[in-house]
């Protein structure tokens, strides 16, 4: 494993992929920035190896999703406005979290409807992608020099699946990993119970939901759970650990970065 949870990795210099390399900005998300830098590092590594020139707009903090989903529209708009500015010059914005990408694509246009930022919000929405979606749909990745032994299952994440319509992309990417067997969950469509403030406001219900998700993951008998959204993964992993399971939990970018063979 190259991506250890506590060891910061050096960030590779982007390699030029052609005459006009794709330029993209990493959207690390507030949770990723604070708690999962390793995922950002892995995403930058994978994108760089695919010839994408990655930058990191330092003005980014939080897209405002937690406030937006909790009904605090003014606070959400205030955070989102700063976020719009941070990525104003980006060609592409790549998020390591499906729900944060969905916030930009689905939430921003609602949040700024009929306001001066409406156009900028629509333009940013059109340039924003979830990580696996960007690899498959924008870069057209069909094969990867990635290997890893074992069996993995995938949590699709509700907003990635339903608000972005990203379902097959991560499955295809996992299918490109040599030596890795993909075992789908029996109930891939079920929410893990996170839901932002829902996990705090309705904690007991949320725990019952994540317990069923954890049961489903364990039933597959895999040694790796892969996801596309660190909030869902944090929730599932947090419950797995509390229940005493050491099952490895990784963002897809980490799996690809760690298994990359030159």
């Amino acid at each position, binding site marked *: 494993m190259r991506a250890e949870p506590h060891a910061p990795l050096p960030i590779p210099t982007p390699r030029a992929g052609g005459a006009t390399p794709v330029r993209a900005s990493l959207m690390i998300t507030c949770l990723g920035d604070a708690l999962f830098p390793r995922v950002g590092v892995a995403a930058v590594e994978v994108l760089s190896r695919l010839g994408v020139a990655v930058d990191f707009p330092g003005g980014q903090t939080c897209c405002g999703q937690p406030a937006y989903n909790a009904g605090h529209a003014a606070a959400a708009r*205030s955070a989102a406005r700063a976020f719009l500015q941070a990525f104003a010059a980006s060609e592409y914005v790549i998020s390591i979290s499906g729900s944060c990408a969905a916030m930009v694509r689905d939430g921003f246009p609602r949040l700024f409807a009929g306001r001066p930022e409406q156009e900028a919000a629509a333009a940013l929405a059109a340039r924003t992608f979830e990580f696996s979606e960007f690899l498959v749909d924008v870069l057209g990745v069909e094969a990867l020099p990635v290997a890893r032994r074992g069996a993995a299952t995938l949590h699709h994440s509700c907003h990635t699946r339903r608000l972005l319509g990203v379902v097959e992309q991560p499955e295809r990417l996992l299918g490109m990993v040599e030596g890795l067997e993909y075992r789908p969950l029996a109930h891939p469509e079920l929410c893990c119970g996170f839901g932002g403030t829902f996990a*705090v406001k309705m904690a007991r219900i949320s725990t*019952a939901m994540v317990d069923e998700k954890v049961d489903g993951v364990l039933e597959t008998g895999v040694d790796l759970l892969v996801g596309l959204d660190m909030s869902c993964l944090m929730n599932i992993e947090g419950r797995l650990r509390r229940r005493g399971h050491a099952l490895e939990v990784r963002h897809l970018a980490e799996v690809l970065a760690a298994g990359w063979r030159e």
Partner: protein
Amino acid sequence: MAGVSAASRRQASAESGGSTNAASRRQSSAASRRAFDERAERALGDPALQQVLRAGQDYVQALSVAARAAPDWPLALDEVARVRGATLARLDRYVEEFASNVEKVGGHVFFAADAAEARRHVVDLAELRGVRLVVKSKSMVTEEIGLNPVLEAAGIEVVETDLGEFIVQLAGERPFHILKPAIHLPLDRIRALFSKAAGRDVGGDAHAMTRYARDTLRDKFFAADMGISGANFGVAATGSVVLVTNEGNGRMVTTLPRTHVVVMGVERLVPTFPDLEAILKVLPRAGVGLRATTYVTALTGPRRAGEADGPEELHVVIVDNGRSRMLGSKYEQVLSCIRCGACLDVCPVYRKIGGHAYDAVYTGPIGAVFSPLLDGLACHAELPFASSLCGACTEVCSARIPLAELIRELREDAVEQGLVAPAWGAGFDGFAAVARRPRLWGALETVALPLLRLMTAVGAPLRGRGPLGAWTRDREFPAPQRGSFRALWARGPARRDGPDDRGGPLGRERGRG
């Protein structure tokens, strides 16, 4: 029912003259929230119920898979949404057309502005005719207006004849599911209920139990002097009332008693029969995974001269009860609902807490939107928050209602109306103030992350304490890395190539220009 019921809260709010005092509203919503938590925890702590809920959803899902995989399914849903949307856009016209056509074929129409008016009218109809026994076919709107208790208080026996409703009536409960009212009750409980009513053991065999229900209900059908039904839809062009049923009880209720009373929501109209067809293509498949329902009954007026059966009188009670308030509002689409129940069958929250936890007539995702709109948000302020916004309801909705988005909208209303604890607003305002200032954000990370790392290393301090206590009570908080990503990026190789390589954690953009 433990805690404060929505009905009593409604009454209290009415008695206090609809007080606009934010503090008292918040207090009442906090009490209702506690009652909700109690009901939810009771459901979560009931292993038999948990099993029933999972199995129930999985069963319907398995049945619906084929229907939903059909290539024309999305188009069929689009068509339902179109028909419903077009109807709502001109609802005033269709209501008028429907009412005048009902009267043309010999029926009587009564417009009830609210639940009380609707109840009073039906009770008056019954009392004037000396009715002693009412048979009912399944109707959510009669649940909504609280009809049965009022009829019973007037000394009238009321018998629910839909098998599921018959069971929950014997159990003294409210429907657990808008389409499958008794889905939560296991067979042995139903056996006990039937045996108690029969005064003998009806046996444990499902057929024997059904036989008991049929025999009992048959006598009631013949003895009843009034039949009360809902309406799946009214057809404006003909004044017909359409019922979609599986058991045949709807036909008995609407044809055998002398008087037939239809109670329907004002929005439940379609312009024409071809419009109805679009809905009937979807309703049984979405609701129970069947391509067709057993009975589709279109009733046009009471019995005419020379006809063999049918009621002598037909009364149609059209209930508003807050619906016209939703028309033209940002929640108008909720009136498109065709009551298929599909959103309940996919909702992961309903899967855990079931119907009774909602303490509302309409439950699940549609109930989380419709119940607060009907009864007032203060009566059900917790319901829009009883959702992870996973969007399964929106995905499956037969009428393309953006349920998850409407749930989120209601949260905004709850915040605006002061129904959410002020600490949340203050917290998010503070959060936004920091989020607007990337340098401050980065500086706070530099301070907070090592502390958080230390706390997670020690373990215990984060368990069940602090603002995230409810989350960490059941889950391990992830140990942060040594610093934030932005700090890491600022130290990256390309950064060293930049003009300022000692910028610390607040590095500017890299790879630009």
